[in-house]
């Protein structure tokens, strides 16, 4: 066991001597958290909408007033009056405006006659996020305009009352769980995978192999050291990310304990997976080439950016065996919901089993000779 601790001591001395690994492992997740957290999941504001009024009747004025109220309140879009429908369509096509509303001739008369009055909406659907937001806002406006001035005494339509059990979660908070897992992955990839292969190539392992250290001591020493580095990265990003995103759950001792368990399980799972992949690799280029591929393959299908339910079936299978999925689910359960042990027990079970299972397979594959 003392020899295993010697390996851990060597790795940790190097780790603390050079803070670069810690900085590098946290730089990408923090940048991602700040940029994606603010860039995605927000409301669209300031979209340009052309309005062509070919009716000029009182109902058209009512619709345009509703548009103006949107422009000065939630500001999803601002309107620009157009006289020519063709010009408005052309400007949508060329991107001068994001959408065009066409109020056709006889619109007011049809409204009064209850004769299927229609407003045209021309959108640039190459940008589905923008066109979806404008369509949704326009539909709300039309629904509001359609409401009768005097409501029926008996409501004929079914209404949905939505109860949100948690306060509004900004996208940055949603993204934090993925960022923590990503920081730990990078720490394992650089501090475990790349340094391990670099040490092999530099002959450091040759130095170990001429000592009486056993295969198990060497494997455990390398993996425990890798897991400690990932735990430190995970703890650092949990604290920094929670403060940046405004999550107060880290001040609850119980939640902190569960977060620590998740960080530990994730470290063991990531480290075991990385060791299994690198155990027979000698070329230092391999982990560098795999870095981006693995990041895409494991991070994005895990539900870090968008829900797993959105994926096609084949992608969901990756999520099922991906340790990122369980780590991120667990972090979300504690950070966003403070859900307690019950909400993370399956995640913890998977992460620990996956980690130790990978090490169990990797250890016999590790060569005690050159």
């Amino acid at each position, binding site marked *: 066991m*003392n*020899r295993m*601790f*010697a*390996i851990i*001591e*060597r790795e940790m*001395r*190097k780790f603390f*001597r*050079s803070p670069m690994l810690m900085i590098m492992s946290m730089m990408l997740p923090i940048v991602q958290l700040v940029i994606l957290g603010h860039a995605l999941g927000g409301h669209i504001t300031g979209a340009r909408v052309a309005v062509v009024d070919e009716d000029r009747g009182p109902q058209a004025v009512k619709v345009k007033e509703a548009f103006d109220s949107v422009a000065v309140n939630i500001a999803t879009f601002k309107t620009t009056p157009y006289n020519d429908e063709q010009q408005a369509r052309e400007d949508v096509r060329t991107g001068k405006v994001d959408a065009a509303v066409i109020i056709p001739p006889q619109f007011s008369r049809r409204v009064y006659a209850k004769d299927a009055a229609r407003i045209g909406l021309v959108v640039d659907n190459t940008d589905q996020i923008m066109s979806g937001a404008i369509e949704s806002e326009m539909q709300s406006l039309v629904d509001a305009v359609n409401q009768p001035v005097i409501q029926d005494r008996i409501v004929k339509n079914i209404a949905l009352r939505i109860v949100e059990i948690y306060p509004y979660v900004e996208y940055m908070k949603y993204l934090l769980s993925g960022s923590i897992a990503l920081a730990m992955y990078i720490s394992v990839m650089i501090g475990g995978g790349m340094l391990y292969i670099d040490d092999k190539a*530099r*002959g*450091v392992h*040759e*130095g*170990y*192999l*001429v*000592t*009486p*250290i056993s295969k198990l001591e060497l494997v455990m020493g390398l993996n425990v050291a890798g897991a400690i580095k990932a735990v430190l990265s995970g703890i650092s990003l949990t604290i920094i990310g929670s403060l940046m995103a405004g999550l107060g759950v880290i001040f609850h001792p119980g939640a902190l304990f569960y977060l620590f368990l998740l960080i530990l399980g994730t470290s063991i799972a990531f480290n075991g997976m990385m060791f299994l992949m690198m155990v027979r690799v000698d070329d230092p280029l391999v982990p560098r080439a795999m870095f981006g591929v693995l990041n895409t393959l494991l991070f994005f299908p895990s539900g870090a950016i968008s829900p797993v339910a959105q994926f096609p079936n084949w992608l969901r299978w990756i999520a099922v065996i991906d340790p990122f999925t369980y780590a991120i689910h667990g972090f979300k359960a504690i950070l966003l919901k403070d859900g307690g042990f019950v909400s993370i027990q399956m995640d913890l079970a998977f992460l620990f089993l996956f980690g130790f299972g990978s090490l169990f397979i990797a250890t016999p594959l590790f060569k005690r*000779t*050159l």
Partner: protein
Amino acid sequence: MSGSATSSGNGAMRAAIKVENIVKRYGTFEAVKGVSFEVANGEIFGLLGPNGAGKSTLIRMMTTLIPVTSGRALVAGHDVVKEPNAVRNLIGVIPQALTSDQDLTVEENLIIYAKLYSVPRAKRQKNIDAVLEAVDLSKWRDAQTKTLSGGMRRRLEIARGLVHDPSIFFLDEPTTGLDPVSRIAVWEMLNNLKKSRNLTMLLTTHYMEEADRLCDRIAIVDHGNLVALGTPIELKQSVPGSNVVEVRFDRENEQWMARLKALADVTDVQSQSGGFYRVLTSNGSQTTTQLVELAAGLREQITSLSVQNTSLDDVFVHYTGRQLRDEQVKSVFTMPPRPGVQP
């Protein structure tokens, strides 16, 4: 000193290293072809040969780094295949590359290795102080390894290999990449260590001078075979002629080979390009006189002439049919001819 090499039950003196018909095969390629030799206790034994001769493969088999295909190697009486940990406890190994951690200090590197060898806590600091003193790095114990020069880093590697008091020391090309001054410093250090610690050393080298100055006995290895074995003096004496006369004639002439061989006391003549000949003779001064007279009589001009004692280079040429330094140069690059200059 731990790990005596005389641990046999019958009390008989046992060789520190005994290699019997050892073979290493990679697929169909045979890197080491049935080599046998013994290294006595307290001896510095050199494996001399060009790059790719199989020296490092041999040392790696003896230090348990690579599996043996067939044959047997006993180190301090322990079989490297059957008792690898017993072997590892008794040996110190200096690999060819500088592998100490650059981010750690000199002392930290030694602490880690002392722990890897399970040196007891009470003895650890004493051993580290002693080896730092032995390699003259005491002043640098707190320096980060990356701040050390190449020679100092090599000394640190030597200290690292000694931190657990081994009885047998393996060094794989210990002075490769060092400048001449650092190289001589390492030689002196190894000689001192051998005396003060009664170490048995096995080193590989492709430097003739290193083998000549350091080694009690030398094995010449070529293409995986052991082609010669003996003390430097024995090896030199095994080559016909005790002196080498190197002569270069102004003009190349096919008849020179026969003329030189016909001189008295000449045992062999080796021809190289550009009118250059190496004449092995048992009487250097006599042959030189004859050679000058012969050239004068034939009105041929000698552009250079030198007389030397037989070197290990001659031994290598004698046993392998080519020069060691040629092998090294060929393995790296071939110089293109300079324009307008005759080779």
